[in-house]
Each structure stands twice: as C-alpha cells, then as structure tokens.
C-alpha cells in the first residue's frame, strides 16, 4: 500500500517536473520570438499578414513543443516531435509561397526571393524529422529490450 502511494507520488512529481520543463521551454521560445519580432517589426509591417502568419506558426509550434514535452517517456513524444518538424517544413513552404514573397505598396511592387533560405530551412526540418524517427526507433528498441528482461 505504502509502495503504491510512493509510486503515485513519484509519478505526480515526475509530471509536475514535465509541466515545469514544458512551461520554461514555452516561455523561452515566446521570449525569443518577442525579441526577434521587435527587430523585424519595421520590415514586417511592410508585408501584409506577415506578422499574423509568424504568430500562427509560433502558437502551433509552442503547442506541439509543450504537448511533446508532457508526453515525454512515451512514443507520443516522438510523434509530436515528428509532427513539429513536419509542420515547420509545410508551414514554411506554404507561407513563403515557394520562396517568392511579393507585396505591392503604392504602385511599387516588391519581390523578395527566399528560395535559398527556404531550401536550407526545409533541409533542417527534414533533419529534425529524421532525428524524431530515429528517436522513435530507439525508444521502441529500448522498450522491447526492457520487456524481454
């Protein structure tokens, strides 16, 4: 009985630690976003909907990061990490319109070619996805060994 209670306390403590870690990660990520958005604000104001798109990206990314952190120790943690990497790749490709971003301000048409940036970002996203898949394989491998013992 006492052992069961201790086990339950340990789990609760572990979950509280996960929540704390997820909160810290989320706050740090949001903090970085706010600092960077201050630098980019003068440029982003010229591009309609740019700030909104970045905000949506940050919200979804932080959500997946927090959920992934809360499910740490289970296979879902790796699913959410893979989802995060996939979301980064797809959202960037969608928002950056294939790498060519354009806007028109007072009869002046402005075009920014971000294809190189997009390619590098997508490659990094793919690397993150590969890492998540490897982590999932490793996790299942370790679990199988654990069960065998």
């Amino acid at each position, binding site marked *: 009985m006492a052992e069961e209670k201790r086990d339950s306390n340990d789990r609760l403590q572990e979950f509280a630690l996960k929540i704390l870690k997820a909160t810290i990660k989320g706050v740090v990520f949001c903090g970085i976003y706010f600092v960077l958005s201050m630098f*980019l604000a003068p440029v982003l104001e010229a591009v309609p909907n740019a700030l909104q798109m970045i905000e949506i990206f940050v919200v979804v990314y932080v959500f997946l990061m927090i959920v992934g952190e809360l499910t740490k120790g289970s296979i879902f943690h790796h699913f959410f990490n893979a989802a995060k990497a996939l979301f980064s790749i797809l959202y960037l490709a969608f928002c950056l319109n294939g790498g060519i971003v354009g806007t028109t301000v007072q009869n002046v*048409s402005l075009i*920014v070619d971000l294809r190189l940036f997009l390619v590098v970002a997508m490659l990094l996203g793919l690397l993150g996805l590969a890492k998540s898949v490897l982590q999932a394989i490793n996790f299942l491998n370790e679990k199988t060994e654990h069960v065998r013992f």
Partner: protein
Amino acid sequence: MKILIRMIGIATTLFWIFLIVFFISAVYSAKDIDFDFGVPQVGLSPDNKILFSLPITIGNKGYYDIGSFNVTTEISDQEGFMITRASTFIPVIEKGRQIVATHKDTIDINALLQKSQDYLFNDAELEVHETVGIKLADVIPVQASTNFTLPWGAPLYNFTLGRTEYSRFNGTYVTATVPTYFENHASFDLAVIIRVYMYAGTNILVGEGQTTVETPQNTPYHGQMELDIPVDAIAESGHFEVYFSTAFFDFGPLVIPYG
C-alpha cells in the same frame, strides 16, 4: 544510436540558430541602406542622342555587403513598342561604404521617328518601367519595380505654315513670305535648320528657302521663311515640302498643302 541522435540534435539546433540569426540580421540591416536618387539631367550624348542621367547615391550602413545592385529602365510607347532600355550594375557595395553612380539612358529620336512622326509634332505619354534589384548580404535577392508615365514633349509641336504673301516684285521674281509657327515642348533646347520647298500644282518646284531657328525648351517660335519664286510660277494651289535637320534628328519631307 543515442550519440548519433544527440549529434543530429545539436547540429540541427546550431544550424537553426545560425540560419535565424543570419536571416534576421540581414533583413534588419536592410533598413540601414540609404538610396538617394538625385535630380535627372537631360543632355546630348556623344553620338547625338538625348541623354537622361540620374545620379544615384547608395550608402550601405548595414552589417553585410550588398551584392548585384541593378537599376533597369525600360521606356516604351502606349502600344508597348520599346523605345529604349538601359541598365546600371554595381557588383558589390561593401558595408560601411557609400557609392555614387549615374544611371544613363539614351533616346534615339531617329529610331523613334521610324515608329511614328507624331513624336515630333504631338505631345505623348511614354510608359516607364523602372526596376531596382539588390542582393541583401549577397544572398537574398530583393527587387522593387514600378510603372509610371513620362510626358513626351514634341520639339516641333503644332508646326504650321501660314498664308503665303508675295512682295518685292523685281520683274521676274517675287519673294514669297511664309509665316512659320511651332512650340518647342521638348526637354531640350532646339537648334533646327528648316528647309522649305514650294511646289506649284501637282509637282513643279518653284522655289526653296532655308532658315536656322534656335528655340529654348517650352518656348513658342513665330517666324517667317522667304522664298524667291518666278512670277509666272505663282499658282493658286500646291504644296510645301519641309525638311528639318538638328543634332538629334533629321526629318522630312513634311508635306503641307496650300491654296
């Protein structure tokens, strides 16, 4: 396996940080690039074409060099016929440096007149397509373009020959005085040699005259041409053939009937 995953994780994080910091600093430093377009000047090129010069000052106070600075001007008429195209290219503007360049564009009026003689006698609107391109941090291409119209002032706007008057009879010849009028709407001073040939009836040359006219820009010209013609060649009707010769262009004949 764990070491490999950790290595991938560290490498990915480092590359992400590098990419984001580089991208944001490159975009942020774009606000420290100054472009100053000076007052356009109109002159004459060595090959007798109209020369438009636009001084451009570019100050790069950003964190990175600017690559492939390019200004392109395309001038076309209302129907889309391209009259002229000019480009100015600067390969690199190093950080902390200021560069002054002159964007030059020439218009060959002779080539323009092959398209339509209206450009000599009637004002028009020309379409200008202006493109400015740079590579931020030598990596991120940015291009701004705009369209606007440029008024074309005709150098011989409303050229007309008035009613001919005959005087100074000397027995065999009379002097025919032909009033001449036009307005120089062009953006340059005009020095033109005008030659007039007078034909009587269908095609009989009866006299000719020549005058040199200097008309500053946006100024009307009122003058007269004098032609000595035989008394017996005076006719009720006929036509004038007018030829114009300037440093910019040669044009003729302009046929103006009389009578």
